[in-house]
């Protein structure tokens, strides 16, 4: 199993722990990844709103670079995953977009034939590696740790084919295999507000708060996320959201951090120390004795 790895900008900044833990998970499961040479920003949701056409060209440069190496792409960030997939769809559906993008790529000596698949780590782990193979490699069982699985929006909607768009369960299955207990979390695909906390703070804080409250109410000890922006929002603004509504204190980890922990990775090698709501008391309470 070999894939082209597309980290995206957030995994080099606020989402560093996501990259660190994913790399640990892939290493433990012998999944080979190679970073796309000289990848560029996918444009994210922000670029789309100034200039949609250009954003497809930006995304396509990465697709073309991966195609040159004949590999499928792993895109862990929700926004990257969506934008790269959307570009694929739109190049197929709209001849005018196809033409604009093909010419832009041609200007820098690249071509794109549409052969690359853009995939999420959840998809790779579930369908290429398999739950059984992962369960067999668990060294530190999660001892019934109560997890609220939070998928957010752009992983499952609108293009993912590996999971249900309304009630996704891929993360549930992976974490259960590691011994976690999945709590009921009906808001699992509700939006966290994205960059709204920065641009329209009152609204952003409300959205963040509902998600935190719901997890706390249902007895979750930790929220597990798949997106750098969701993780950042839910973790960093708990106090602010709490001051406006009801206080919450719940650690928010990347699903890959929980997986890596179960597969025996050392906590500081997977960015556990980078969190703002400490996870150590929760792990100690469950008698999870990690490396």
């Amino acid at each position, binding site marked *: 199993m070999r894939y082209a790895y597309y980290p995206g*900008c957030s995994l080099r*900044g606020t989402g*560093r722990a996501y990259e660190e833990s994913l790399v640990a998970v892939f290493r433990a499961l012998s999944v080979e990844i190679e970073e796309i040479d000289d990848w*560029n920003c996918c444009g994210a949701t922000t670029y789309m*709103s100034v200039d949609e056409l250009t954003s497809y060209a930006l995304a396509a440069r990465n697709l073309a670079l991966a195609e040159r190496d004949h590999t499928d792409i792993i895109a862990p960030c929700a926004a990257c995953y969506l934008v790269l997939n959307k570009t694929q769809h739109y190049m197929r559906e709209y001849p*005018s977009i196809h033409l604009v993008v093909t010419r832009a790529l041609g*200007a820098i000596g690249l071509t794109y034939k549409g052969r690359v698949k853009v995939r999420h780590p959840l998809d790779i782990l579930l369908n290429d590696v398999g739950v059984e193979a992962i369960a067999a490699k668990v060294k530190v069982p999660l001892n019934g740790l109560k997890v609220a699985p939070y998928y957010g*929006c752009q992983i499952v909607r609108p293009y993912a084919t590996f999971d249900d768009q309304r009630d996704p369960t891929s993360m549930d299955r992976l974490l259960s295999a590691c011994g976690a207990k999945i709590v009921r979390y009906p808001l699992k695909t509700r*939006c966290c507000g994205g960059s709204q906390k920065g641009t329209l703070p009152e609204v952003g804080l409300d959205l963040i708060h509902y998600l935190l409250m719901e997890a706390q109410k249902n007895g979750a000890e930790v929220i597990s996320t798949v997106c750098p922006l969701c993780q950042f929002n839910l973790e960093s603004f708990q106090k602010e959201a709490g001051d406006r509504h009801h206080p919450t204190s719940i650690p928010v980890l990347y699903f890959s951090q929980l997986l890596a922990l179960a597969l025996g990775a050392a906590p500081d090698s997977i960015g556990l120390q980078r969190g703002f709501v400490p996870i150590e008391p929760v792990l100690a309470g469950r008698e999870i004795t990690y490396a």
Partner: protein
Amino acid sequence: MELKRTVKFEADRDPEFARWVSHTVGGERIRHCLQCGLCSGKCPLSLYMDYTPRRLMHLSREGFKEEVLGSTSIWLCTACYACMVECPKKINVTHLLYALKERAIEEGRYPRRFAIPVMARQFSRMVRGRGRITESWLVLQVFMRTAIWRLLGMSRLGLKLLRAGRLPLRRETIQRQAEIATMLDSVATTRKELAL
């Protein structure tokens, strides 16, 4: 007391806008809208909007340009795609919202120092110049241009992020950065040629 006519007249419509909506990416199927309201029901932001997605669909296709481009809804949309997944007529609601936002920015219809268009502009400049985004610089640039006083309130979080190694200050740049500008120029040329 300011009194305003609350019923819209046929003459308030802008047929040109309606035509643009139904021909833009995302708007092609808008004629099929049943006004069922599933989009509004699923939208996590609709309770903050002046026109909910359902109403926005109707106003757009009928050409009520002023109402649509002046509404808060186009700025509140976070592109979470909940509406699009539910739409029984498979209308690309989210994509249309993108197009409306792009149009509103083009026409300069937003309050001064409004963070969303400012962020979009800074974001695209950084991508053009460096090929990648460095979050710390982007946030700094946006606050400097919108609400510099809020930087103070953000400084605690900034320090926490720095200490956790999550806010690198070194700016990310790709190696072949000239390629980005070349591509963007090519897009602009083709766009003009094809009048897209």
